[in-house]
């Protein structure tokens, strides 16, 4: 039985949700409205007046090769971050799941990176891979590899992917571990008796039963890679070299605050707003029908 508190009247409930409404209005509805409004204008070079251009900013953006390149970069970046962070997390969760004793310790240790702010994580990785004084760079140098993510686009991408994925592993790990532990042990044992060895069991039983968790994490991680990796990219590569790590969110910042092209920047925000709405809808739709077997 679900226990609900019911209120008489409307004043008290309204008062209780007011802070949330205010926060949402100030930090979401207002800026979102501003972005939509501004995306329809082009400011003059001195920022003194605005010229209405309708969907001109969007037309320009979609024909802009740099913007399209940024889309591709974002796709590559977020796929890599998602695959790496979920893959490593799943691997660790499977190992921890087989371990009954001590899994609590691992869980605690593995959750730590989650508490590290993206910008701090970025600085951390930047130090390790600094082209001159980085400890990893030095070891790679000993092995005869000349690491330089400031010049090499692939290396730059690799570094921001690793730095972004690292912070997500613990979050994903916790969900995967909970998902694994929710699978009844006897089902796994029945499969073992039926002849399935570890890998077959994983492929045919464990992974399918884990699919609700996997899908949930997929959406959450894509959203993260799209929007919350700004700090990492800003501290490590600032979108370079040659825009190789300029993902859509970073481009909003670069064009708007650095390039002062507010109209284009606002139009980009609106496009991102649409993307995140679609992702959210997918997620909610799916979570509603979560129990699919």
């Amino acid at each position, binding site marked *: 039985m679900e226990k609900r508190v019911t209120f008489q009247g409307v004043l008290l409930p309204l008062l209780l949700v007011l802070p949330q409404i205010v926060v949402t209005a100030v930090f979401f509805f207002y800026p979102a409205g501003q972005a939509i409004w501004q995306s329809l204008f082009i400011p003059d070079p001195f920022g003194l007046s605005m010229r209405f251009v309708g969907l001109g900013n969007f037309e320009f953006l979609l024909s802009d090769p740099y913007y399209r390149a940024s889309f591709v970069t974002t796709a590559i970046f977020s796929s890599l971050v998602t695959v790496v962070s979920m893959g490593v997390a799943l691997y660790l969760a499977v190992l921890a799941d087989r371990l009954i004793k001590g899994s609590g310790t691992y869980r605690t240790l593995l959750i730590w990176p989650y508490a590290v702010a993206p910008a701090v994580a970025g600085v951390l990785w930047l130090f390790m891979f600094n082209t001159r004084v980085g400890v990893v760079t030095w070891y790679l140098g000993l092995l005869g590899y000349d690491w330089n993510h400031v010049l090499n686009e692939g290396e730059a991408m690799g570094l921001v992917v690793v730095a972004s994925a690292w912070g997500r592993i613990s979050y994903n790990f916790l969900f995967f571990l909970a998902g694994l532990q929710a699978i*009844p042990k*006897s*089902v796994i*044992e*029945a*499969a*073992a*008796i*039926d*002849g*399935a*060895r570890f890998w*077959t069991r994983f492929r*045919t*039983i464990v992974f*399918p*039963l884990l699919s609700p968790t996997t899908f949930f994490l997929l959406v959450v991680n894509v959203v993260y890679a799209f929007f919350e990796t700004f700090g990492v990219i800003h501290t490590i590569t600032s979108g370079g070299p040659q825009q190789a790590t300029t993902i859509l969110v970073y481009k909003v910042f670069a064009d708007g605050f650095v390039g002062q092209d507010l109209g284009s920047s606002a139009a980009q925000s609106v496009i991102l707003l649409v993307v995140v709405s679609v992702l959210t809808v997918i997620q909610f739709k799916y979570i509603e029908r979560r129990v699919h*077997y």
Partner: protein
Amino acid sequence: MATVTLENLRKSYGPTEVIHGVDIDIADGEFIVIVGPSGCGKSTLLRMVAGLERVSAGEVRIDGTRVNDVEPMDRNIAMVFQNYALYPHMSVFENMAYGLKIAGTPKPEIAERVSDAARLLQLEDYLGRRPRELSGGQRQRVAMGRAIVRKPAVFLFDEPLSNLDAKLRVQMRLEIKQLQRRLGVTALYVTHDQVEAMTLADRMVVMNAGVADQIGAPLEVYARPQTAFVAGFIGSPPTNFVAAQLLRPGAPDGARLGVRPEHVRVVSPGEGALQARVMYAEPLGAETLVHLKLADDALFTLRQDGTAPVPEEGAEIGLAWDDDAQMLFGPDDRRLQG
């Protein structure tokens, strides 16, 4: 089809030993039921035969081959779990076909064997459903089906009927017995229900705190319990115990006499072996259980025919029984005399 041998089988979790050396020889095609109270180690024993639990000491042999270090999938066994352990994301057909598919059985043969099993278990109409769309009894049948399609040498059952209602339990009990007879497969069946044990078993193993107290045919175990535990556990209501010295001066300290409720007769006060006061009677139709209190406040039960006159509450009566109905157990609870 195979024999199963357990030799001085032991299991410890850390420093605690929970199975203290069990020896059982199971013949080909035999139906063995392991019965005992909760926590006595029945599941642990079965899981060691299945290979799901490591053997701490001793040996498990299937068809004469030592299998201590053989993986479950290589033991040629099938197991039915208490919660059925069906694969929730697969249809009934896929559940039953899973093992065959892994073994690389050709598709037409899989289809044939699954449909044979489905016919046998009356599951033909449910092959396309998922486990969550089935009733408890149907799930139970799917679990059985999954076990039989692979034609294993040994069936293992861990309390397969305990999640069913009483009526279905009786029906499935019969079906399991018939199925095992028809297939002629050696079966090891764990239960805490003595009626299940009595009705299913060719031989039953009565477990007590990690030890197999007695192994034998059900009626044999019932008639000649080797320990006080077996006498108390098998039979309902359980055997009555009284201090042996009460009736046999000279019996060793701590020895007890056991008498089954159905062997006790009511006689006039002052006569018979014991005097008792009637507390209350439970008329069950075919029989009546009379609960009594002895002089030293110990409880005593007698069971009489439903047609016999029911003694009144509070009445003083005498209790008598034939000499060969009484069982003497030593201070160590072992049977002293036949």
